[in-house]
């Protein structure tokens, strides 16, 4: 049946722009890297992945169509910058995105089909605890945090990223009210969730992974702010956070250094303040439109490929480029919140809310840290930074959000179609 759209809204225009950006960017890098064909292969791989995933998403009616567009804009910018910094990073990032895409679809289908997620809070808790114990026993220490597990010499991953998702699911069980029975007959879910949060935070303190502590604890605060009518709990938790923060500042050297660097990176510029001051120099040297891809000197910033990639974006694509990245994250967060509001199942609502808060907080913490707005804690910028676990877990969370939006959409259109059919039958 030929359905004619009289005034149609085109979903294609933004996709064409994305393809144009990729084509121009990778051609430019092709020149920059002495006509190394690998650059073109990487670009082609990004485009092929985008086209495949987006086509499957649209044709399969898999929920929201905008988030994937914006995510691939971020990924394109990220891969461009990574290829420019070091071609091997870009190459490995592509492999991770490929894995992430597969995980995205797996997470989508598993979350869509399995209906018992809201009853498994103890599994999430046990899983999270096991991951922490494994990390403590087998973990490697990288950059002061003991949060890496290596299997062989090829694969290494950060279990705390997986724990974040488990933690959100566990909190969502409590927030949606599907976990209402007291634990051991005594402890109400409200207090059990509190205890689980503090246990996880305790493990993270042992690992010295401050960034993840901040993300997890803030997710908990946001959750109880939205779901808990008892305001006292929120106030007490904030007080506890402040007290723990002050104690940490007083007694832990690690945190003292971070705060000192934040307040004044210039006094120790050659040593501890080096990273943050180089990042600020890079952002400042970019100007409004940036020095152009390949004209900057991002190599002065340590860890520029993972935590500090935002500084490199600001240097080579300008303040406008950086603002565009922040805007894209804003829009993604807005779309995810809309999905959360529209969702009908309370557990779905809570999970999508938690995941959105996770994305938003991670972006805020690392961009704030790189631009010296808040003390720096090393976490990855979702979808942009180089990092296998980060990319894969971000895609998995996105798959969950997409599944929730698809559930809502199919419930809506299903109800409408059913009503229409019934009315037709009556007539």
């Amino acid at each position: 049946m030929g359905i004619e759209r009289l005034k149609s809204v085109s979903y294609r225009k933004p996709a064409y722009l994305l393809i144009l950006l990729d084509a121009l960017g990778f051609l430019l890098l092709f020149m920059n890297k002495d006509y190394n064909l690998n650059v073109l292969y990487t670009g082609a791989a990004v485009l092929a992945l985008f086209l495949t995933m987006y086509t499957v998403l649209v044709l399969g009616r898999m929920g929201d169509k905008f988030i994937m567009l914006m995510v691939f804009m971020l990924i394109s910018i990220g891969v461009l910058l990574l290829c420019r910094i070091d071609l091997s990073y870009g190459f490995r990032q592509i492999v991770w995105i490929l894995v992430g895409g597969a995980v995205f679809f797996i997470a989508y289908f598993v979350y869509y089909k399995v209906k018992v997620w809201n009853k498994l809070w103890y599994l999430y808790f046990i899983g999270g605890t096991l991951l922490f114990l494994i990390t403590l026993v087998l973990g490697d220490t990288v950059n002061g945090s003991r949060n890496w597990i290596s299997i062989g010499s090829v694969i290494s991953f950060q279990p705390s990223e997986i724990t974040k998702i488990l933690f959100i699911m566990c909190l969502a069980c409590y927030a949606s009210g599907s976990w209402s029975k007291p634990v051991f007959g005594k402890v109400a879910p409200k207090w059990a969730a509190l205890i689980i949060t503090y246990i996880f935070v305790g493990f993270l303190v042992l690992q010295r992974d401050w960034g993840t502590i901040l993300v997890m604890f803030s997710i908990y605060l946001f959750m109880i702010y939205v779901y808990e009518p008892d305001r006292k709990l929120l106030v007490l938790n904030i007080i506890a956070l402040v007290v723990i923060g002050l104690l940490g500042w007083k007694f832990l050297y690690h945190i003292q250094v971070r705060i000192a660097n934040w307040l004044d990176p210039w006094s120790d510029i050659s040593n501890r303040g080096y990273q943050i001051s180089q990042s600020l120099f890079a952002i400042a040297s970019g100007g409004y439109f940036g020095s152009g891809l390949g004209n900057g000197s991002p190599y002065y910033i340590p860890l520029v490929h993972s935590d500090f990639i935002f500084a490199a974006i600001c240097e080579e694509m300008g303040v406008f480029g950086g603002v565009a990245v922040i805007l894209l994250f804003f829009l993604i967060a807005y779309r995810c919140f809309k999905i959360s509001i529209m969702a009908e199942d309370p557990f779905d609502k809570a999970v999508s809310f938690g995941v959105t808060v996770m994305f938003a907080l991670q972006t805020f913490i690392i961009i704030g840290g790189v631009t010296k707005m808040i003390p720096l804690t090393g976490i990855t910028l979702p979808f942009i930074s180089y990092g296998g676990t980060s990319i894969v877990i971000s895609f998995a969370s996105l798959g969950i959000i997409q599944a929730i939006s698809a559930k809502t959409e199919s419930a809506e259109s299903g109800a409408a179609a059913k009503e229409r059919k019934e009315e037709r039958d009556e007539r």
Partner: protein
Amino acid sequence: MTVYSFISTILSYVFTVIIYVFIIFVIRLIYLDVKKMSRFEDNSIADEACASLRPTKSRTEPTHPLKRRYNIYGEAVIGRSPDCDIVINEGFVSQKHLIIWFEQGEWYLEDLGSRNGTSVNGKRILNEVILDPEDVISIGGLNFVFET
């Protein structure tokens, strides 16, 4: 290398423009999406989508007075027959002239084989069409504005 840095500098402006146009497109799409969502929330009666037809300036004068607004709840058949949801008692309107219904977030219009036909925005329709707000539907000589 000077040629390269020149091209790169030029392209840095191009990139900025592309990214911002992309963002503007996405914001526009989201705006349209939200507008569609909110108009069904506001007008719906018992979870059913609601739209309306407002008679507007027409070529022919109706012999019977028209109402100021015809509401459509989910689905409506328009025609001369008294069985229709919206009855327009004019000679050039067929017994069952056309049907408008709501499905999967869109309003559809189909002509039910009427003698004088139906046009949307001045175009005679043959198949189903998707209606947008402010489309003008002409039944014979009578014009209606479709509103949601």
